[in-house]
């Protein structure tokens, strides 16, 4: 019985490979180098949601039915994010990075994989409070047009504000958090001043090149969805896009250790994933 199951499992892996290859060749969406464990889980989940028995059946529908393709792409990506996610990261940014940035006349910042923008608005608030915002330009990019549209709008659910307010204060914020937004029914809209120096645009880390030189790059919780090869390539791209002594930020559970650029950065402190390019 277990041999049968193992063979079925191997077959499924083959079908998943074919589906991803087909998706790439037909539409240019390239998930071939994403971390397979999590991609597989979401594909099987979608197969169940579409009430299909095999990955091949899902492939047929994805390739021939445009609305299914859209559902599939949405289901395949993880967009989870939050304002001041991991407050201590932002606290360290305030204490250690802000003083460095104050020595520059202008500061170029890249938020790569910004999802629906919560991270960008958090950063903008912090920079404004530290009287740095005016000399900053933030490039916020993502592969997904749908999330960028939301990021541009800056409208978030009211229900999330309690958590975000807590995060904000833990991250060293001293103002009334509610001063930054206006509530409307069950949503809030963030002050447009926060996005006056932000450019939102599409950029695919897997295929597009560098487009500027930055003093700060944040790429948090994006590369955990990539396999090691793609992760290494993107680390190289980000390294090349960062100016000497520029600051690089990763998600809380991401590491430079397993990448080709580990030796080229130094830690800003032990705990938070903030690094400085020193070579």
């Amino acid at each position, binding site marked *: 019985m277990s041999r049968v*199951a193992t063979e079925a499992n191997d077959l499924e892996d083959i079908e998943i490979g074919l589906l991803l290859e087909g998706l790439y060749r037909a539409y240019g969406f390239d998930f071939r180098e994403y971390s397979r464990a999590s991609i597989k889980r979401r594909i099987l989940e979608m197969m169940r949601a579409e009430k299909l028995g095999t990955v091949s059946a899902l492939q047929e529908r994805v390739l021939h039915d445009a609305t299914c393709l859209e559902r599939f792409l949405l289901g395949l990506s993880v967009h989870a994010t939050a304002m001041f996610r991991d407050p201590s990261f932002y606290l360290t940014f305030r204490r250690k990075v802000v003083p460095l940035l104050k020595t520059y006349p202008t500061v170029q910042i890249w938020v790569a994989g910004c999802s629906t923008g919560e991270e960008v608005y958090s950063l903008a608030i912090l920079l404004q409070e530290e009287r740095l915002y005016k000399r900053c330009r933030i490039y916020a990019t993502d592969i997904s047009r749908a999330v960028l549209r939301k990021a541009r709008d800056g409208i978030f659910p009211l229900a999330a504000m309690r958590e975000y307010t807590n995060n904000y204060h833990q991250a060293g914020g001293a103002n009334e958090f509610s001063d930054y937004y206006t509530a409307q029914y069950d949503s809030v809209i963030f002050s447009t001043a926060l996005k006056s120096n932000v450019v939102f645009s599409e950029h695919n880390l897997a295929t597009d090149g560098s487009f500027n030189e930055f003093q700060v790059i944040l790429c948090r919780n994006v590369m955990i969805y990539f396999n090691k090869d793609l992760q290494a390539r993107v680390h190289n791209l980000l390294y090349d896009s960062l100016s000497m002594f520029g600051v690089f930020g990763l998600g809380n559970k991401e590491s430079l250790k397993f990448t080709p650029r580990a030796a080229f950065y130094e830690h800003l402190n032990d705990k938070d994933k903030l690094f400085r390019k020193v070579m």
Partner: protein
Amino acid sequence: MSFEIIVVGASTGGLKALQVLLSELPVEFSLPMVIVQHRGKDMETGLCEFLARSSRLPVREPEDKETLLPGQAYLAPRDYHLMIQSGSFALSTESPVGFARPSIDVLFESAANEYQDRAIGLILTGANHDGARGLAAIKAQGGLTVVEDPATATCREMPDAAINLTKVDWILPLSEMAAGLHKLTNSTKRYES
């Protein structure tokens, strides 16, 4: 045949159960052990240190793409799903599964996929059904399934759910768990050589 990993799922009552298990496993227990313990979103981050204090094996929260090592216990970090892919950890923040992130099912399914019949799955105390599906996946791939005896578990729902879904190989009270696992992994090794 020899095992290469043991994955462990625990929920309500799990802190105590894990403490007992980790304090009784001998230092020479060599399989990497990967643990999902449910915890509230706001629960303090000291869980890993807490477990490490009573464990004879080193315990750590893995980072993304970290390689699994023998003789090491790993605890899934708060608010991330933990999976195993090509001998390394893969983390994810995709939505909670049945309200749980980390989810036991997610870890167990990836272990079944990666290790097939070389995985051991262990379900401990808990007041929900997480892990039942994952344990079934391990069984389907020919791995070994172990469940804490519901009769003596702090919360029996999770062990019960696992037993209902899968014809599990071993049902052991917590007091015999460490010795049982040790014997099991030891004897299969001897058998191998």
